[in-house]
């Protein structure tokens, strides 16, 4: 059934391969939002196959080669930098671009804190993580405010 009604919508893209993050300024010329797919972005940045990671990751964690499972806790030093760069580049081209994350990391408190600090507009996570994410998002805001106050002092 066709109607005359129009629905407000944006057209955007997921950013889930490193090249997309690196060329985010060009992508933002046509994309009205970015949604960071950090599962794949982590996989491609580390070069770890997500489906085979169970075989070697426990050893890496045990030996202290990795501090956390990067598929559970966002790797802020590596993958996080790609996100940060894409956020900056995206906003350069399109200041009102809508930015969010939709990987597993969207429900993990330390990753949510990072998303807040780099200026994302929203996090998206599986339904049962929503309450945790709501709390973690509030904590991230308060934590940043407290750090800023300390800096002023």
């Amino acid at each position, binding site marked *: 059934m066709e109607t005359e009604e129009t629905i407000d919508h944006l057209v955007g893209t997921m950013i889930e391969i490193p090249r997309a993050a690196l060329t985010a300024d060009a992508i933002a010329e046509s994309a009205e939002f970015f949604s960071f797919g950090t599962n794949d972005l982590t996989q491609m940045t580390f070069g770890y196959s997500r489906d085979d990671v169970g075989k070697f990751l426990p050893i890496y964690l045990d030996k202290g080669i990795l501090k956390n499972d990067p598929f559970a806790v966002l790797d802020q030093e590596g993958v996080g930098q790609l996100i940060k760069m894409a956020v900056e580049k995206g906003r350069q081209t399109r200041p009102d671009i809508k930015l969010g994350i939709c990987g597993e990391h969207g429900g993990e408190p330390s990753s949510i804190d990072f998303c807040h600090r780099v200026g994302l507009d929203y996090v998206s996570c599986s339904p049962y993580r*929503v309450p945790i994410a709501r709390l973690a998002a509030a904590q991230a805001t308060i934590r940043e405010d407290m750090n800023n106050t300390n800096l002023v002092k």
Partner: protein
Amino acid sequence: MKNKKRVYTFGDRKAEGNASMKNLLGGKGANLAEMNLIGVPVPPGFTITTEVCTEYNEIGKEKFIELIKSDVKSAIKKTEKLLGVFFGSEEDPLLVSVRSGARVSMPGMMDTVLNLGLNDHTVEAIARKTGNERFAWDSYRRFVQMYGDVVLGMKPESKDDIDPFEKIMEEVKRNNNIADDTELSVDLLRALVVRFKAAVTAQTGKKFPSDPWEQLWGAITAVFDSWNTERAVYYRKINKIPHEWGTAVNVQAMVYGNMGNRSATGVAFSRDAATGENNLNGEYLVNAQGEDVVAGVRTPQEITLKGSKKWAENQNVSEKVRKEKYPSMEEIMPKAYKELFDIQHKLENHYNDMQDIEFTIQQGKMWLLQTRNGKRTGKAMIRIAMEMLDEKRIDEKEVLMRMEPEKIDELLHPIFDVKAMAEANVLTRGLPASPGAASGQLVFFADECNKYEKVILARIETSPEDLEGMNIANGILTARGGMTSHAAVVARGMGKCCVSGAGEAIIDYKKRTLTIGKKVYREGTWISLNGSTGEVYKGEIETIKPKVSGNFDRLLKLSDRYSRMCVRTNADTPHDSMVARDFGAKGIGLCRTEHMFFEGDKIIAMREMILADDTDGREEALSKLLIMQQKDFEGIFEAMQGLPVTVRLLDPPLNEFVPHNSKGQMEMADAMEVSLETIQLKVKELEESNPMLGN
């Protein structure tokens, strides 16, 4: 390095440290100092810093003793002066406890030595001074045993080995027809000390140290060493505590809860650690040492009358028997109870958080051994913080920053369906030690918790060695031990369902059975626990997902007021969308359309599309899909009530939509009315050599 302060003393309302120095003094040490500063009675002593633990690990025992000797000697001197007793004196000996204390509490994970300073001479002085020979020799035999286990490495490593001291104890008790430790006479205790020491020499080749200073260095280094035991390392791993923090060591004058009927020892919480309810609760034992309460060897009694009555009801104990055999501290020690009540109030007002307190009453005199912010369940965490907000003790930001986000997960754990629970068969009741609902198959050993997919670990009582298994188990049931037993405290910390002290349950480790009355339940039997009521059920009970309400709802609404980002959900179906809305999602951040295509008729239309040779064919197949997909989206949009929904356009991994075995391919050929070859050709065409990377 030489001028660094390594030892901090406290006592008689003065202290060199304070509560803000947790990193340096450990949680216990910082709070012992702070309690002195606010006028709570604490036995005097001193804390060796966590930094020294690191130094010790670098330079080894000999150099470490050299480094710290003069600091410790002057700290001991200060303690001696305050109490008028002297370390190693054969007239007025000072006895001390040596305990661990990391930045955050790691209950039961590290070692403790009590009664240190006892030897063949000092024991006689203690007997003379207290006029209680039995007490003196019982303390001495406990000391040799504890020191032997902890410092001299006599403790058996596996569950199959027998503790050499326990073996001697059993033998002496059997030969003298004694059932209970408290019946051992002074002569038997003297003989036990001699045999214990001989066992030490036989196993280690060295004499048991009688010099109190040698004992002290041994105990301090053993506590530092216990930072690196397997169980402590595992505990840090699951609780994400850095290994480099190290532990502090607290050396304190001993006070005794086992000096007769005017003495007692106990553990109290200023609010309920399971539910968060604002009432003092806890357990105590008359004429006992601290370890007796926590270890679950004797049945601890409730501190408050209210708690005692509730306990009796749970345990099926009549009011008459309760009053005679298990009276509350409020009833039989009203003065000490009043004092404890005031102190917990003072501590809670000071720390503005629920306190977990250890105390000892020595011949009528109240001493605090420890206070710390109590471990609690997720539910209690929220209720306590929200009520403290209502009481205007803390502000909204403090409420939010106090929350441990991962603990929120506990409130989303399944609960028993009310209807299913009403029809279930109650086997017995224990104490509601840690809330939650759990069904699983019975196992009796912590290292066998992997045996079935869902297990209930049943133990007479648990110990720190059981930690790993407790973490894996769905629920924990103990036959002995109260609300402050090891099982209860650890389970609450983990947010794991636990019923403790189910007195009617008889557990036989050898036969691997749980007996209740005349019924015997073997390993592998399905049982269910309700950690909120203490009920134990037969079989598996259906569970449902809980709703967000009350304080939990208030907390989340408060969160939304403070956060800059909003929270959306990843949902591909109307059902998931509804669930997420109920949990407060403000839209969908990712809706993956390809997941819709795997269901039922949709995969057939999808395959038609894949097989189509030209655009017309593809469009025809897609038009069939359109109708089906539209229904899904309508459901999702309805659930989201006008909130934004981000739809990811079709990104189909085509090779996942075609069958890869010949049976499936034959079926597909039949359904599509094409030849098997056509299908196989298509499958081959879609094959990827590296499906992980794009196509």
